């Protein structure tokens, strides 16, 4: 007997997963959310997405779909009488898909180095990230959302910037989306953060009850853990082996930078729950 209902396999910090949740919630579709430990993927996930093994995966009545932007279009097509996600006009649809691809391929690749670069190299990558976003910003001209008056497909695809870019800026000690450089994008951030489905689903930014995240780096690249530099807001790399980390380092809470699907070379995040004691992973 075929299983019924909607499941989302995700990782709570992933901006790609959140796209799927936004789309489902816009349509008023109930779903079961299954959180994955990406360092130890479930059999179910591997069975549903054996080809890329990534989250998000949507399982609808037992049938899996992978790739977040594709899932969003699927949701719009299946629940076609609900909220309209894709534009109706073929040219507008092509434009929305074009910019979604541009954002995922070019902007994400331009943003990621901001997080890992330091010093002079960092100002260069910040500038490049801004250039990329300025190109994308053109699609906002004269509009409240990329979708026009209403939150739509492209807003769903890039809306994660509104929450995650300020976090990246804070952790990296830079400014990317400013009033001077990217006024339309900055204004759009406010619009995005006011959308109900966005508010319902964003992981907490400033949360005192805390999960603390230790970035253990890419297994392939051995980039190591990110540990704080003294009492500053800056972080530096530390050898990758858990257990080498010295006891004397102050405990820091860093926000999750959910680079998963878009930033393939950053590797995996491990979530360590650190309430009152230190737990290294």
């Amino acid at each position: 007997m075929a299983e019924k209902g909607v499941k989302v396999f995700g990782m709570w910090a992933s901006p790609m997963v959140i796209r799927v949740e936004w789309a489902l919630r816009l349509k008023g579709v109930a779903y079961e959310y299954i959180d994955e430990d990406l360092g130890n993927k479930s059999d179910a996930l591997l069975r549903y997405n054996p080809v890329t093994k990534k989250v998000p995966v949507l399982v609808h009545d037992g049938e899996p779909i992978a790739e977040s932007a594709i899932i969003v279009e699927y949701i719009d097509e299946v629940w076609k009488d609900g909220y309209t996600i894709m534009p109706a006009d073929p040219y507008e649809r092509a434009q929305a898909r074009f910019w979604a691809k541009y954002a995922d391929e070019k902007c994400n690749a331009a943003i990621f180095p901001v997080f890992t670069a330091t010093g002079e190299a960092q100002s260069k990558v910040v500038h490049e990230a801004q250039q990329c976003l300025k190109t994308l910003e053109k699609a906002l001209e004269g509009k409240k959302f990329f979708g026009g008056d209403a939150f739509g497909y492209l807003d769903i695809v890039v809306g994660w910037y509104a929450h995650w870019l300020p976090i990246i800026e804070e952790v990296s000690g830079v400014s990317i989306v400013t009033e001077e450089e990217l006024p339309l994008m900055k204004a759009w951030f406010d619009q995005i953060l006011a959308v109900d489905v966005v508010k319902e689903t964003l992981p907490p930014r400033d949360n005192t009850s805390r999960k603390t995240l230790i970035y253990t780096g890419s297994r392939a690249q051995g980039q190591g853990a990110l540990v704080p530099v003294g009492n500053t807001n800056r972080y530096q790399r530390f050898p990758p082996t858990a257990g080498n980390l010295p006891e004397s380092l102050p405990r820091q809470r860093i926000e999750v930078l959910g680079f998963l699907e878009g930033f393939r070379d950053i590797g995996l995040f491990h979530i360590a729950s650190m309430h009152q004691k230190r737990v290294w992973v």
Partner: protein
Amino acid sequence: MMSPEKQETAAAVRVLGRWPSPFVIRVLIALRLKGVEYEFVEEAMGNRSELLLASNPVHRKIPVLLHRGRAVSESLIIVQYVDEVWASQAPAILPSDPHARAAERFWGQYVDDKFPTAIRVLRGKVAGDKDEAAAQVAAALVHLEEALVQCGRGKGYFGGDSLGYLDIALGSHLGWVRAVERMARVCLLDAAKLPNLAAWADRFCAHPAVADVMPETDRFVEFSVNNDGVPPKAAHTNSK
């Protein structure tokens, strides 16, 4: 000599491109499938036209479809656009069932993740490990053999009875796949291991919408020899 109406219609749809590009080939196949008349505007090698730069300022790449005074870029996006604009003309390029559509889009993206760079390496157009590139293509084809059986459900194409989106996405690479098999002396589409795909490949290449826009393997090999740098048999010569 075209009638004035046909001339107007033909000029109404233009494709900027170059014949060896699999991405351009995709667009041409889609238009031919729909019976849409178009003008092919050939871009010169290594010299982007003003029209291209104006039509695709973001990427400055071919193909670009010009229709109703507007430009559409990115081959698979163009294919979907063609499917949607000429929705009333059979055949449908994407299937109507949402799950089948999502599956074809997934595999289309997969093809673009796995094939273009690997093929460029195998052509010798970019530096890279040819063995690794060949292994990547071969592994991808194993997955696609399975996908063909699942999506096509025993019929001739990924799209079932008729050639569709995923057929176009993958099939457009066949010209170069066959060319690099010859030039790099590798077997990528092994008929013994991938019987369904092998049969599909012949069927695809012979399809009326494809045959005129995807030339014989010889032409691809010749193009590569003339344009991609070191010729295939240059192993022991003093090459630059």
